[in-house]
């Protein structure tokens, strides 16, 4: 295996406010190989977005801080870079797409200007070269009549079109990696299908690795090669996508998959499997497995200490942080 493009090691990102510390990400490790698509899934508050913001060092100043761990990207530790050096990475080596394109685009600048700006700053391109690149990028993301739409403003585009513009902008500098945080969550399902298809096409064309952050296991199943499942700021399972869906080994992953509403034609609506209880508060330090209070397999040992990651069924690529893998798989 070649050296990973991104190597996150024991990342801890905590938020500090008046009433205490929130351990949003608490000891997360994962890697992304060049040209790989890795999904990070989990429910609200599991730390997946904070992970993205940590990699890019875009945490809200004063509130959020990386308190431990390293983020190696192309061999350099991003946590040790100066703000100036980081600027050379963000938007250049690492592209970003966020959930709501309207709030991530500047409403008073034309989209051509916004795409060209990144190219001028990062690549030192001339104004006309940058504009040509912007046209080319809009064309690439299949915005009809690209050259003419360059001077349009974000509000003149539909939601799906805006997300295409974001993708064009993120890829304009030929990044090695694209971080996409819920890129299709705000879109209608037919538009979501268009945008996901486009992302995969462009990935094949440009060879950029993708870190796809989402709560939607359907999106993960259809786009990712490898999946990291997060719960309460920690990784509970990691596996190649086929493995994860065929043989989920962590009780949380199982619960998540079972609770997805999928109609079975013919049968009158049956009860869905629920995960009882709620996500724990990240304000209190969590002893043992964070999922133990909601887990039907939990034993005393689960509550006593944090279970480390262990291989599932002898597959080194498939790991779960659970003491009871054997019982879970047998159930």
């Amino acid at each position, binding site marked *: 295996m070649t050296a990973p493009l991104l190597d996150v090691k024991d990342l801890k990102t905590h938020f500090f406010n008046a009433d205490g510390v929130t351990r949003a990400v608490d000891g997360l490790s994962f890697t992304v190989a060049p040209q790989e698509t890795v999904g990070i899934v989990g429910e609200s508050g599991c730390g997946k977005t904070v992970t993205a913001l940590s990699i890019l060092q875009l945490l809200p100043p004063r509130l959020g801080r990386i308190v431990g761990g390293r983020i190696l990207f192309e061999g350099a530790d991003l946590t040790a870079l100066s703000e100036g050096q980081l600027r050379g990475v963000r938007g250049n080596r690492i592209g970003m797409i966020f959930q709501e394109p309207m709030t991530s685009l500047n409403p008073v600048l034309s989209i051509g200007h916004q795409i060209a700006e990144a190219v001028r700053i990062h690549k030192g391109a001339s104004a006309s070269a940058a504009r040509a690149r912007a046209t080319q990028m809009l064309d690439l993301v299949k915005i009809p009549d690209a050259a003419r739409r360059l001077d349009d403003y974000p509000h003149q585009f539909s939601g799906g079109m805006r997300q295409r513009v974001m993708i064009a902008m993120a890829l304009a500098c030929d990044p090695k990696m694209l971080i996409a945080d819920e890129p299709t969550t705000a879109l209608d399902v037919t538009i*979501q*299908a268009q945008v996901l298809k486009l992302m995969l096409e462009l990935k094949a064309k440009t060879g950029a690795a993708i870190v796809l952050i989402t709560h939607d*296991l359907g999106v993960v199943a259809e786009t990712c090669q490898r999946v990291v499942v997060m719960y309460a700021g920690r990784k509970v399972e990691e596996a190649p996508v086929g493995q994860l*869906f065929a043989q989920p080994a962590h009780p949380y992953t199982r619960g998540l998959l079972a609770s*997805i*509403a*999928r109609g079975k034609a*013919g049968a009158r*609506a049956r009860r869905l499997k*629920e995960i009882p209880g709620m996500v724990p508060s990240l304000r209190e330090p969590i002893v043992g497995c964070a999922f133990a209070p909601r887990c039907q397999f939990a034993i005393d040992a689960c509550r006593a200490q944090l279970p480390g990651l262990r291989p599932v069924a002898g597959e080194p690529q498939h790991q779960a942080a659970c003491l009871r893998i054997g019982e879970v798989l047998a159930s």
Partner: protein
Amino acid sequence: MTGAPILSVTDLKKHFQVRRGLLQRTIAEIKAVDGVSFALAAGETLCLVGESGCGKSTVGRLILRLIDATSGDIVFKGESITTLSREAMRDKRQRLQIVFQDPYASLNPRLTAGTIVGEPLENFDRLGRVEREGRVKALLARVGLGADALNKYPFEFSGGQRQRLGIARALALSPAVIVADEPVSALDVSVQAQVLNLMMDLQEELGLAYLFISHDLGVVEHIADRVAVMYLGRIVEIGQKEELFARPRHPYTRALISAAPLPDPGAKRERIVLEGDVPSPMTPPSGCHFHTRCPFAVARCRAEYPELRSDGGAHRFACHLDL
């Protein structure tokens, strides 16, 4: 469907005027709902699906008379409620309730859960204080909120719990029909399952009928008895869930079903990716509204709007072609 429907709408229309300028002249008209008809039987779940702007939420609001229809008729329990006075309508809403998508925005942040659920009882039921309190406690317990919920404020609940609270409030006056507008869309999937289970249990217990508005086909396929698919203000297909999912007749329904990502990486299927965006409802395309994105469109589709038709059964679709 057996017996008379508990709720039916006939040729329901809602046109919004777009006004501009100093004189507020009408410059355009948005046909948010443009001739929608369906019937809901007691104890049944009819799902209204479609993408943003298709008019599904407007239909829900029209039925509750939160906004007034431009034309058409709404019949609830055999009585037309389309033009009832505010006063008379308030009375009807005891049996016709709504649950909204965002429970945080639809619950008064300054009232405790007990007051929120108790308010409808106070307004309509002549119960004593003690009786009322007992009923509120029973309602909260029924939706899975503990007795300690009584004195808590909405912000003290999680999203799923707030939606339970919204459901408890809707149930307070023993309604016959609940319009549920994207009730689980804002919730995480494991919590979605909890709320959907609760809704199905309550339906069984209380014989509720749901008009369930959703964009999520997974949820719809799970909870629906019948499904109506909307596109730009009109129903393009309506039928029994099993039939509609197994053999969708309208190309839009097909695309919608095929576009929903499945949590199964091994699933091999033909994905229909529609080109383009939903057209603006201000300037809907001529003929069949869907023809601009339809891979099968022929000349007739551009000229003539297809009426809903069937192959003899209850499954109806608005398409000129026999796909």
